[in-house]
C-alpha cells in the first residue's frame, strides 16, 4: 500500500518533469526573460537536486497543496474540490446501477440456463462490453432527450441541475465559521456533492432533480460493468448451483427462492465483489469520458481543458487524486473478501 502510494507520487512527479521544454517558459510563457526565469527557478526550487524536489512535492501533496493552476492562478486544490464530486457521483451511481442489475440479470440467466432470457442476456453482455461509453451516452441523449420529448420519460440531456435551481453551500446553510485545512476540504467536497448536500439540508426537490440529471450518465457509464457483472454472476451462480449443499437444500424441501437467494447467491458473491472492485477504475475512466457528452462540470471536462492548455499542475493533481481513490477502493475490496469469506482470514 505505502510503496504504491509513494510510487504514484513519483510517477506523477516524473510526468511533470518529463514535459519537454523549460518549466519556466511553460509557466510564464515564451516571452519570459532569462532574468525572470532564473528568479522563477530560484523561487520554486527548480535548481535543487531532483530528490529534494521530489520530497518537497510529496510533502506538499500530502498536505493537500497542488500548487496553482498555470492558466488562472487558482489553487489547484480548489479546482479538485469543485470538480471531483460530480465524477464521484456519476461513478457511484453507475456502480449501484451496474451491480444491482448485473446481479439480477446474472441470477436470472443462471436459474434459467439456456432459456431465451439467458441467451439474450449473454448476447447483450457481449455487445455491452464492446460499446464505447461516450457513444452510448450520445445515443441515450438522442433517445431520451429528443425522441421521448413531451412524454413522461423525457430526461434532460445535459447539465447537473435544471437551470434556475441553486443549492447553498453547506458552510452557508449551517453558518459555519471560516474553515481551513482538511476540515475545509471535506466540507467543501461534501457541499459540492449536490445529491448529498441536498439530502442532508432537506432540499428534496433539488435532490430529485439532481438524480434525474444523473440517470443518463450513470446508465451510460454503468453498461460495461453491468455486462461484466452479469456474466460473472451467471458463471459463479452456475458453479454454486451444482454444489452438493444446494442439492441438500433443495432435498430438504426449501423453497427455490430461499435456495437461490440464501444458499447459492451468498456463496456466488465473492467473485462478483472482485469484479465490481476491479471495474471501479473503468467506471472512473468512463465517468471522465461521459462528462464531456453530458456537459457536466466534473474531472473529465476540466482535465481535457487543462491538457489542451498545457496546464500541468491540474493534470498532475487529478492523476494523483484519482489513483489514490482507485488504490483505496481496491483496499476496501480486499478487506471485504475477509468479511464475505471467513476462510480467507484463516489463510
Amino acid at each position, binding site marked *: 500500500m505505502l*510503496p*504504491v502510494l509513494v*510510487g*504514484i507520487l*513519483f*510517477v*506523477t512527479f516524473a*510526468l*511533470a518533469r*518529463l*514535459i519537454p521544454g523549460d518549466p519556466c517558459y511553460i509557466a510564464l510563457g515564451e516571452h519570459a526573460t532569462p532574468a525572470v526565469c532564473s528568479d522563477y527557478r530560484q523561487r520554486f526550487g527548480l535548481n535543487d537536486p531532483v530528490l529534494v524536489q521530489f520530497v518537497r512535492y510529496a510533502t506538499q501533496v500530502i498536505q493537500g497543496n497542488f500548487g496553482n493552476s498555470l492558466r488562472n492562478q487558482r489553487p489547484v486544490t480548489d479546482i479538485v474540490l469543485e470538480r471531483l464530486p460530480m465524477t464521484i457521483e456519476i461513478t457511484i451511481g453507475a456502480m449501484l446501477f451496474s451491480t444491482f442489475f448485473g446481479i439480477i440479470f446474472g441470477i436470472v440467466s443462471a436459474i434459467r440456463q439456456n432459456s431465451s432470457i439467458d441467451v439474450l442476456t449473454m448476447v447483450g453482455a*457481449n*455487445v455491452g*462490453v*464492446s*460499446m*464505447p*461509453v*461516450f*457513444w*452510448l451516452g*450520445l*445515443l441515450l*441523449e*438522442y433517445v431520451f432527450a*429528443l425522441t421521448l420529448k413531451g412524454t413522461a420519460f423525457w430526461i434532460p440531456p445535459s447539465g447537473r441541475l435544471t437551470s434556475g435551481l441553486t443549492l447553498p453551500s453547506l458552510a452557508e446553510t449551517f453558518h459555519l465559521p471560516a474553515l481551513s485545512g482538511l476540515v475545509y476540504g471535506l466540507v467543501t467536497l461534501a457541499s459540492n456533492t449536490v445529491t448529498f448536500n441536498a439530502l442532508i439540508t432537506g432540499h428534496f426537490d433539488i435532490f430529485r432533480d439532481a438524480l434525474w440529471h444523473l440517470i443518463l450518465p450513470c446508465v451510460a457509464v454503468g453498461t460495461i460493468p453491468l455486462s461484466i457483472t452479469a456474466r*460473472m454472476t451467471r458463471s*459463479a451462480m452456475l*458453479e454454486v448451483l451444482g454444489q452438493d449443499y444446494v442439492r441438500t437444500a433443495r432435498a430438504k424441501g426449501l423453497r427455490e427462492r430461499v435456495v437461490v437467494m440464501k444458499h447459492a447467491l451468498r456463496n456466488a458473491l*465473492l*467473485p462478483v465483489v*472482485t*469484479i465490481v472492485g476491479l471495474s*471501479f*477504475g*473503468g467506471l*472512473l*475512466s468512463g465517468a*471522465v*469520458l461521459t462528462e*464531456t*457528452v453530458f456537459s457536466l462540470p466534473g474531472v*473529465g471536462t476540466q*482535465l*481535457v481543458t*487543462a*491538457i*489542451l492548455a498545457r496546464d*500541468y499542475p491540474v*493534470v*498532475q493533481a487529478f*492523476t494523483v487524486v*484519482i*489513483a489514490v481513490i*482507485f*488504490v483505496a477502493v481496491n483496499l476496501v475490496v480486499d478487506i471485504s473478501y475477509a468479511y464475505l*469469506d471467513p*476462510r*480467507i482470514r484463516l*489463510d
Partner: protein
Amino acid sequence: MAVVPSFNDLQREPASKLAVRTPFQDTFRRLRRHRSAQVGAVVLGFLILVAIFAPVIAPYDPILPLRDVKRRAAPCIHLLGCPTEQPQHIFGIDGNSRDLFSRIIFGSRLSLTIGLATVTFAIAIGTALGAVAGYAGGWTDNIIMRVMDVLLAFPSLLLSIAIVAVLGPGLINALLAISFVSIPVYARIVRASVLQVKEQDFISASRALGASPLGTLVNHVLPNAITPLIVQGTLDIAGAILSAAALSFLGLGAQPPTPEWGLMLGEERNSVFNAPHLVLFPGIAIMITVLSFNLLGDGLRDALDPRLSQMGIKVK
C-alpha cells in the same frame, strides 16, 4: 516436412493412428467448433477485407470535401427510395461535406492497425521485462515488478490521458500511451510462466547442453507463455481500440481530418440531435470491431487453455 497423405494412404492407415493430432491441430479444432470464436473470426475476416480493399469499396475520398452537397445531409440510399438523380451517400454527409461511408471504410484500416500495433508493442516490452524479472530474480525482479505494480495502480485510461498530456495530443502519442499502460499485464504473465518452468529439468538440460541463457529463454521458456499472451493480447486489442477511440473522441488522439472513428464521433457529438447518423455509424463501426476481437478472444481462451477461463472465477 510434413507429407500430405493421399486418399489411398488414409484408407490404409489404421484409425487409431489417424486420430493422433498435434496440439496445434487440436486447439484449432476446438477453436473452429467454438461458436463465439466462429462469429468473431468471420466478422474480423470481413473487417480485414474491408480494410485491405478500402480504396476499392469507398466511393469517395475520405478526406477531400465534396462539392454540391449539403453539410450533414441525411443518408441517401437509392434502394430505400432516395431519388436516383441524387448521388448515393448511404451513411450521409458529415460536417465537412465528406461522404461518411467512405470515411468509415477507411477508418477500419486505422482501427485495426491501432489495435495490432499497440498490443504488439506492449507484448514486446512486457515480455522482455517479465522474462528478465523472472529469470534474473532477486532485486532486478523486485524493482521491475514494483514499478509494474505502481503502473497498475492507475486506472489505465486515465494514465494514458496523463501520458498524452506530457507527450502532447496526437495519434502516435496516444498509441504510445495506450501501449505503455498495458505493459504491466504482459510482464506479469511472462514472469509467472518463467517462474513456473525455470526450475524444471528440461531447462537445466538445455543449459547443460551449453545453450546460452538468452537461447534457453527464447527457445524453451517463452513458448510456455505464448498461450496466455495470445489470449490476453486478443482481448487487449479490443480494449486498445476502445481506448484509442476514447482519446480521439476527447481530442487527444488522432487529429482532423484523419478518418478515425472516435474522432468522427468527437467532431460531430454536438450534432447528435440534428444529424444523428453522424453519431450512429462510427459508433456501430467501433462496436462491431471491438465485439469481434472480444468474441475471438473468448474463444481462444476456451480453446487454448480451458483452465484460463476459470481463473477469473476462482479467486482463491
